[in-house]
């Protein structure tokens, strides 16, 4: 590594590019549709993910309606209910959260934040989006296929997933689901290679790893994890397709279906669970780490204060990423595996609480004595911290084998994971959209509509999921189509279910305000200017807003400082962009 002191700016080699080196789109089609520009691809990813996410939102309404008013909506029968559960879960976790954080924010922010012109493999990047779109279409085709989509639950456990008792088990449903996942993973791998190699190879001069904003660290680590974890889902899907189509017995034990002995025998359903959760647990952090990174940047920018413990934050991200690969079996305490394993996995699970707690403390300490601006991104970031702590604490309950066993099949688990990996990351996504929308479109989102959206979402989700913990402690089971008459569930639980459903509908309506805001502000929003939040990171220093193809003018930016120079004592402004050299030759000594 070459090190150049600030005084000798002339020694920095030029990174001007010849015009021919930049790929130039030739027509409207290659500019906006089959675009190789990461920014356009990011918008395509985001719009697709949000669209399919809306489908999942509607599915959750239908489920809630059934739970609150069983028997009232005759078009929802047990089969439909399970199909709604399955599709809601799978869409939200993979096709919305993963695609939006990595495909959406990753594509938009990585090149801009590290000072690159574009991703390193633009063509593969474009393919990645179109393959993702294909996966979404295959998934959505399930709704129109004979027998409907699969109702196996989002974990798709065999043997039930491929038997006739499960909706879609012997029809198209499960086939489309597995195919869609396989296609998604292929597409994601193409995108993922881009995100990783761009961070490794595309950084601007002066952008060392330790000067990268935490957003990039979060997305980078999550992508590395996803590249290693998704193959597990890939293998599991391929093997289940073999079982379902070709009669093999990877996962299928000897089984009697409808009084008929099936061909299968000897297969191990537990094997599927191992493969699935080897992917499934890292998946939680694949969604959480980008959220951690983004929220760090939002808090620092809107509290006008440098992030507390930057090095710790980076290390914590890496350590969480590594640990998340050795905790998968805590999803399998009730699968009948060896109790000694349970003890091991409970220990590793609880150890993750340490780096996670470090992050939470550092966010709070960043806020401490900061100049907190309660802008919309800040509100969402604050809401995230609270929600994540709440959801994380119940994770400590469930991580213990003896506590998990009685709670495992109750609404308590539903409440836990919706708080920690549903609501919390979604709050960050909203905060991030309010934060970066001005850069993407050049216009601010409407503040009043944003406030309505924030308070409905924040208070509403608490009204939904807090009572759900209580229902779980009462013993109300999850996955049940209707409760019927039970001795241990008091009538008040039904009243509470109605309350939760009403709140869910209100929160859903709140999201419509947000969608309206997105469209309305595109045309009528206040002009934002290049750097409305007075932020330091590179994406706010582009010569044009929205940034044009190639991001930077003729010469690439040079980075002279880390990403968090807010409220530096003695500085004229309360922020110093990363591209500003040290003033007046006051260079502090660099420790070797």
């Amino acid at each position: 590594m070459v090190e150049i002191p600030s005084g000798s700016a002339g020694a920095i080699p030029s990174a001007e590019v010849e015009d021919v080196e930049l790929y130039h789109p030739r027509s409207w089609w290659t500019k906006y549709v089959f675009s190789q520009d990461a920014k356009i691809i990011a918008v395509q990813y985001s719009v697709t993910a949000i669209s399919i996410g809306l489908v999942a939102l509607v599915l959750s309404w239908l489920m809630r309606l059934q739970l609150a008013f069983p028997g009232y909506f005759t078009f929802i029968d047990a089969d439909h209910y399970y199909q709604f559960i399955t599709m809601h879960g799978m869409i939200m976790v993979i096709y919305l959260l993963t695609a939006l954080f990595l495909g959406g924010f990753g594509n938009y922010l990585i090149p801009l934040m590290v000072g690159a012109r574009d991703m390193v493999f633009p063509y593969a990047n474009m393919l990645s989006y179109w393959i993702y779109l294909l996966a979404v279409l295959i998934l959505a085709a399930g709704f129109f296929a004979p027998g409907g989509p699969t109702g196996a639950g989002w974990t798709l456990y065999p043997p039930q997933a491929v038997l006739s008792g499960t909706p879609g088990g012997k029809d198209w449903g499960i086939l489309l689901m597995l195919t869609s996942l396989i296609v998604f993973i292929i597409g994601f791998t193409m995108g993922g290679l881009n995100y990783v190699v761009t961070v490794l190879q595309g950084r601007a001069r002066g952008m060392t790893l330790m000067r990268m904003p935490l957003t990039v660290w979060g997305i980078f680590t999550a992508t590395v994890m996803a590249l290693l974890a998704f193959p597990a889902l890939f293998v599991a899907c391929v093997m289940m397709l073999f079982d379902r189509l070709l009669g093999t017995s990877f996962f299928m034990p000897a089984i009697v279906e409808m009084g008929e002995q099936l061909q299968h025998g000897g297969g191990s359903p537990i094997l599927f669970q191992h493969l699935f959760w080897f992917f499934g647990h890292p998946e939680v952090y694949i969604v959480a780490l980008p959220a951690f990174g983004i929220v760090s940047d939002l808090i620092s920018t809107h509290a006008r204060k440098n992030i507390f413990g930057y090095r710790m934050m980076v290390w914590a991200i890496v350590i969480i990423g590594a640990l998340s690969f050795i905790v998968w079996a805590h999803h399998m305490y009730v699968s009948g595996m060896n109790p000694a394993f349970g003890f091991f996995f409970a220990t590793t699970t609880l150890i993750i609480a340490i780096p996670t707690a470090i992050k939470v403390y550092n966010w709070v300490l960043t806020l401490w004595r900061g100049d907190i601006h309660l802008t919309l991104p800040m509100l969402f970031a604050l809401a995230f911290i609270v929600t994540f702590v709440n959801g994380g604490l119940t994770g400590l309950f469930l991580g213990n084998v003896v506590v998990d066993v009685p709670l495992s099949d109750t609404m308590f688990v539903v409440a836990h994971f919706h708080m920690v990996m549903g609501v919390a990351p979604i709050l960050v996504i909203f905060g991030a959209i309010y934060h970066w929308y001005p850069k993407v479109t050049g216009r601010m989102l409407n503040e009043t509509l944003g406030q309505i959206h924030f308070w409905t979402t924040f208070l509403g989700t608490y009204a939904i999921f807090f009572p759900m913990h209580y229902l779980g402690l009462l013993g109300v089971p999850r996955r049940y189509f209707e409760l019927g008459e039970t001795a241990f569930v008091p009538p008040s639980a039904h009243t509470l279910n109605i309350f939760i459903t009403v709140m869910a509908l209100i929160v859903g309506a709140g999201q419509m305000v947000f969608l309206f805001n997105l469209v309305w502000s595109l045309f009528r929003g206040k002009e934002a200017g290049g750097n409305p939040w007075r932020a330091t990171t590179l994406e706010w220093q582009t010569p044009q807003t929205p940034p044009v193809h190639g991001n930077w003018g003729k010469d690439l930016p040079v980075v002279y400082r880390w990403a968090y120079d807010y409220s530096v004592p003695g500085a004229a402004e309360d922020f110093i962009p990363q591209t500003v050299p040290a003033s007046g030759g006051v260079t502090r000594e660099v420790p070797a």
Partner: protein
Amino acid sequence: MNVTLIFLAVIGAIIVWWLAGQRLTSKPWLETGSVQLPDHHSADPQQPPVPAVKIGLFVFLGVVGALFSLAVSAYFMRMASADWWATPVPRLLWVNTAALASSSVALQWAKREAGHGRMESLRPVLAAAFALAVFFLVGQIQAWRELTAAGYVLADNPANSFFYMLTGLHGLHILGGLTVLAHTTVRAFASDVQPDRLRLSLDLSAIYSHFMLAVWLLLFSLFAGWANDFVDLCRTLLT
């Protein structure tokens, strides 16, 4: 899942080794003003930066490695059940292995020729490497047919199922490599050869081919049963 965990440990070691060189203990808030050039911006002409595609290939090989180590983990876990009878190894697989290994060697040779700028002599070597890889694929399909004809069908026994699935997955990866190699071969025979690009393509193809050969040797040892003795030994040591 032990195989997967070992694989992850290796990947983890590589990541830690790489991170160790990235000054993760530096205090960026104190280093205002200095500009450290990342390696790929290095102005040193002696050490040209590693091209991005090469890094990309290594990351991709990590993904492929994860895929196969997971599949092999599943193989060992499924193997523990009582209904497992090992599939016999067709003799043809030895020939195929030899073909794949020669293809790999030929690519390495072609790469060396390109390094010395001998464009004329690398063409037949490259063509041979391509043909040998095609031979391997055809041979694999022939091995499938022999097994099926002998009654070892896919759904009959989990060992058979794994044999067909793993060889199939491996074959698909070879096929993907072949499409790239075909592209390179055509370019090598073109009249206006760009030596630099060709050298890079050959370098990448050789790396990929060696990696897939290593995967195949591991799979082959699995099917032939040698790996099982080793795994039994490990199990005894662990328990």
